[in-house]
């Protein structure tokens, strides 16, 4: 039900500027992911939207209304914290009802809303338990449930999966994705350092680096047309190969970028010749690390199994249509 606009938003602690001139427009119902390495300012930006951090420059608007000086509780937002931030001495029900009691809703309506959210997240069986009697995944569901009961215009997630183990992380990620579908009018803002979460969840991704926005776009735009060498390296797994020297110079660039999945490997013929250093077999894929003569180390991704082994001589051929070229400042050179 809400649009979120950031106009020239910046944040400084004393003389240290951690965010500079952030301009974003999030549409109603959109699922936007802020992604970037640690210290890029993504969590700070989220906390500024939440009202937990002051905005030291620029303007935040939700549904067109200025929000810079509005109390967190009056912004129509709800937030899910990395550490869950559940009240440890309250039951699951009390945790979910606490915010509603502040809003002076009557008891019947509180119960109805809590039960509805609990049903949606399949935590009805735990309503009388305390947080410490729950597993990490259940706690995170309670935290999400607490946020849902407030019926927010904007839903904020601050690295909600970071404290979960790998299997739970995938399950909870799917739940959050389906939550986004079930609340089509609620704008979702999600912070993560994990590009896989960003790619799988987002309608649009905002890549932050060093306090500025590197690129805003759909996952596929970022993957196919990265606006900088940083984005090219950050989005995609395994990471894009960046090659300097003669290969790049031959294309009139400082850096030559090619993703591991855009290189074909052959035992006898190809553009580059090299020696296998290491293979990593994941079953579904094999990553082959090759030391290419006169080029340097190159990582190749092969679907399924591969019978190459360390010290084998191999030939690699990059797909010319998938090459990314960057200048000395990391800006893309149109190919």
């Amino acid at each position, binding site marked *: 039900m809400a649009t979120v606009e950031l106009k020239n938003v910046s944040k400084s602690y004393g003389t240290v500027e951690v965010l500079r001139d952030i301009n974003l427009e999030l549409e109603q119902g959109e699922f936007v992911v802020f992604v970037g390495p640690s210290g890029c300012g993504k969590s700070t930006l989220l906390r500024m939207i939440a009202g937990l951090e002051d905005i030291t420059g620029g303007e935040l608007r939700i549904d067109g209304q200025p929000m810079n000086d509005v109390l967190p509780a009056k912004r129509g937002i709800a937030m899910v*914290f990395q550490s869950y931030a559940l*009240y440890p001495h309250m039951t699951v029900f009390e945790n979910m009802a606490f*915010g509603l009691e*502040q809003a002076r809703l009557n008891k019947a309506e509180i119960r109805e809303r809590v039960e509805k959210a609990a049903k949606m997240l399949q935590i009805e069986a735990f309503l009388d338990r305390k947080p410490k009697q729950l597993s990490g995944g259940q706690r995170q569901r309670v935290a999400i449930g607490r946020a849902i009961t407030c019926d927010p215009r904007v839903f904020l997630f601050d690295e909600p999966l970071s404290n979960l183990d790998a299997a739970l992380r995938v399950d909870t990620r799917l739940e959050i994705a389906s939550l986004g579908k079930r609340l089509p009018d609620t704008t979702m803002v999600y912070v993560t350092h994990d590009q896989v979460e960003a790619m799988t969840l987002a309608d649009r991704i905002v890549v932050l680096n060093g306090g500025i926005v590197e690129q805003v776009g759909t996952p596929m735009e970022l993957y196919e047309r990265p606006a900088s060498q940083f984005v090219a390296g950050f989005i995609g797994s395994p990471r894009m190969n960046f090659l300097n020297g003669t290969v790049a110079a031959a294309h009139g660039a400082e850096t030559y970028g090619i993703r591991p999945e855009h290189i074909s490997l052959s035992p006898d013929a190809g553009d580059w010749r090299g020696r296998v250093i290491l293979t990593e077999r994941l079953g579904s894929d094999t990553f082959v690390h090759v030391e290419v003569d006169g080029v340097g180390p190159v990582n190749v991704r092969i679907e399924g199994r591969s019978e190459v082994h360390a010290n084998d001589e191999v030939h690699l051929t990059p797909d010319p249509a998938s090459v990314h070229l960057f200048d000395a400042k990391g800006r893309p050179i149109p190919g």
Partner: protein
Amino acid sequence: MSKTVQKSRLSRSRTRSAWLFLAPMLLTLAIVAAWPLGRTIWFSFTDASLDLMGEARFVGFRNYLEYVAWGDGEGQYYGLLADARWWRSVWNTILFAVVSVSFETVFGLIIALVLNQQFRGRGLVRAAVLIPWAIPTIVSAKMWAWMLHDQFGIINDMLQTIGLIAEPIAWTASPDTAMVAVLMVDIWKTTPFMALLILAGLQMVPGDIYEAAKLDGVPPWRVFRKITLPLIMPAVLVAVVFRALDALRVFDIVYVLTPNTDATRTMSVFARENLFDYDKFAYGSAASTLLFLVIALITITFIMATRMDLEGKRS
């Protein structure tokens, strides 16, 4: 089969080393706690006096309570339980403990809440707050005795200067104010200790739930009552028990500040007087034994009543 044998041998050797490590502490406790306590309880059932401790004879409950018939159908109860001075000292002790611990808890909580905030110079303030606690009790009691002196004390001088009192008050000598003086000094001295224990509890409260409360729109007073207070309650209760144990056996402040006053004589002071000043060693031992029982009873009652989590099962 051999596996279980091995395992039990391992656990037997663990048990053995556990006892080995515990032995020095158990031995020390036996020497410095159990033996003196046992001796005191024994002496309370004898006619021991300071110079004739070796010849003490068992006299039963005479030191506690004894009915002496005068032969004409009348008689009188003697012993500790019939001694009005003893009951006065029991009342003084409990009054002192309840009032001082209550004030110390409230003031300690307020100071802890302030010290838990971020502000410039917090480290300095935290250290400064501890000064009253760091001064030895005898020294601070003497210091306060001078400050509260009826003729030369600075307190009277200040109160007279600002016009709150017309005549100097004999704070420590007057039976009306002696207890107030003792309480004042003890609260001044021990509040920092309370603040420190509660501060430790406050720092265990995770910061993110305050942010969650902010998003929930919970006003500060309600945050304190519904979130902070319940979460630090275990720490506060432990601090209260610690202080209550201390306060119930209070001796030094009273003995230095207001010696020989019915108004402030506590159980410990009463016991000492009889043990050493009046040469009624057995009677003093009986008082010490009762003091032990009273403290044990109150502590156990308090722990049960507050369902205190001593084994950390619920935290």
